[in-house]
């Protein structure tokens, strides 16, 4: 299981790490502090034919490149990935939930912070899907 967490709040990354430690052994997690860094990662590693993540936890309000902009950029790289990840938006943004759900590649929208069992469900569903 490979996860990307994209959030400008360091505490959130830490929290995800703690949850994952309790939930499973042998996961891989990459943390990004804005959408741009994550997109850059995809672009840089595409040529290296790396393993794409299974799950992306995406914040909306971030500096440099926010979550919505990230999703737009992601549309360009997605067709080139070996496998399309499930993207969950995890945000305290007041943006319309229906709008966020309607965005391409978005599997679900959750309020920040998510609890451990929510992350567990996400991972469980993802594993079944695989």
């Amino acid at each position: 299981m490979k996860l990307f967490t994209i959030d400008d709040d360091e505490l959130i990354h830490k929290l995800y790490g703690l949850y994952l430690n309790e939930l499973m052994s042998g996961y891989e997690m990459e943390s990004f502090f804005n959408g741009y860094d994550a997109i850059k990662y995809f672009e840089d590693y595409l040529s290296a034919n790396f393993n794409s993540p299974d799950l992306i936890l995406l914040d909306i309000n971030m500096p440099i490149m926010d979550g919505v902009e990230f999703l737009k950029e992601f549309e360009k790289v997605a067709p080139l990935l070996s496998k399309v990840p499930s993207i969950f938006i995890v945000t305290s943004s007041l943006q319309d939930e229906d709008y966020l759900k309607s965005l391409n590649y978005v599997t679900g929208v959750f309020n920040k912070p998510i609890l451990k069992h929510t992350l567990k469900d996400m991972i469980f569903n993802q594993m079944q899907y695989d």
Partner: protein
Amino acid sequence: MSLYSIPIEDSEKEAERIKELDSYQILDTLPENKYDDITRLASYICGTDVSLITLLDSERNWYKSIKGETGLTSREIPRDISFCKVAIQGDGLYEIKDTLKEDQWKDNPIVTEQNVRYYAGYPLVSPNGFKLGTLCVVERRPMALNQSQKEALRTLANSVVSHFELDKSREIVRKKNKDLAEVNARLYQFAKMIAHDLKSPLQSIKSLYELMRHDEENAQQYKEKMLAYLDRMGQMIDGLLAFSRNNLKSLKKEEISTGNLIKSLMERLNVREISFTVPEDMPTLKTESVLLEIIFQNLISNSIKYCNCEFTTIEVGVSSHDPLIFFVKDNGPGISPEVGDRIFDPFERLENAEFKDGNGIGLYTVRTILMQRGCDIWFESEPNQGTTFFFEWKI
């Protein structure tokens, strides 16, 4: 007697009269049926060919309604040659039974060129007692009105004023409705902004609580951060209350001396042992003093709060008159360049030491007020030398 022997009005009173006339916003508007009905009625009743509703502007006699053939190509004549100019100086009917028999009028171009021989006009008196113009009847032969005709003309003159009044109130209501809609839209935006600003620290507190549950080793560290976020929320709510108290008052523009405003603000802040200077020649403005007060209060109290030096000096003044730019200068610790404009954000990283006792909603409120009127705010700062906040103010 000639035309020029007409007494010159008290210029101050005349200026007030013109102001009253302008308040009706009727000059240069299009003809309207309700006024044309009145002039038509006036000419029927009085048996004249012509009837007019006239308004005396500073230079001209302008006609709101014209019934009959005046022989004029425009809807106005120069004020100085008008009968109405004289008519509005009296309280009752001004009647000229035969213009050719009166020295004052016989050489007047209206008489010599338009052949006007008869004039009768009632002043249009506003509820405040200003004579705005006349309802008059005009004829090209000498004549006289009987008592009933005179009374009818007076009644019609009063109903012209009633229509003016009604139109004016309607315009006021329309404008108030528009203002209300704007205020509502602003309140909605503001509520949204506040909801977001309160939700964000709440989310952080919840995250910290989760971290505490899953990482007991570092619980103490999370607790402290939590407390800091809670304090911050408290500060925000306090600032919000202060802001809404002021914001809900209708923001009237009033004539204020900014120097006095700042001095009384300092008295209310009740601070001692602070050297405070404000120059004597601070400008006097007609503006929303409440907003200026919130801005100065926030900037000055920030300076006081964060000056941890022994001897605090604060200087307020104007750095430019056009555009108008105020400044608030202190000798505090300064704002580090890394922080920059983030100082205006309502909630910033608590990890950053500079924000520990941050400016909360204060500076945020200040910037919101200024942004709403298209004004800028910025600062210059030297570490350990002090900070100067500048802001523009459009009246």
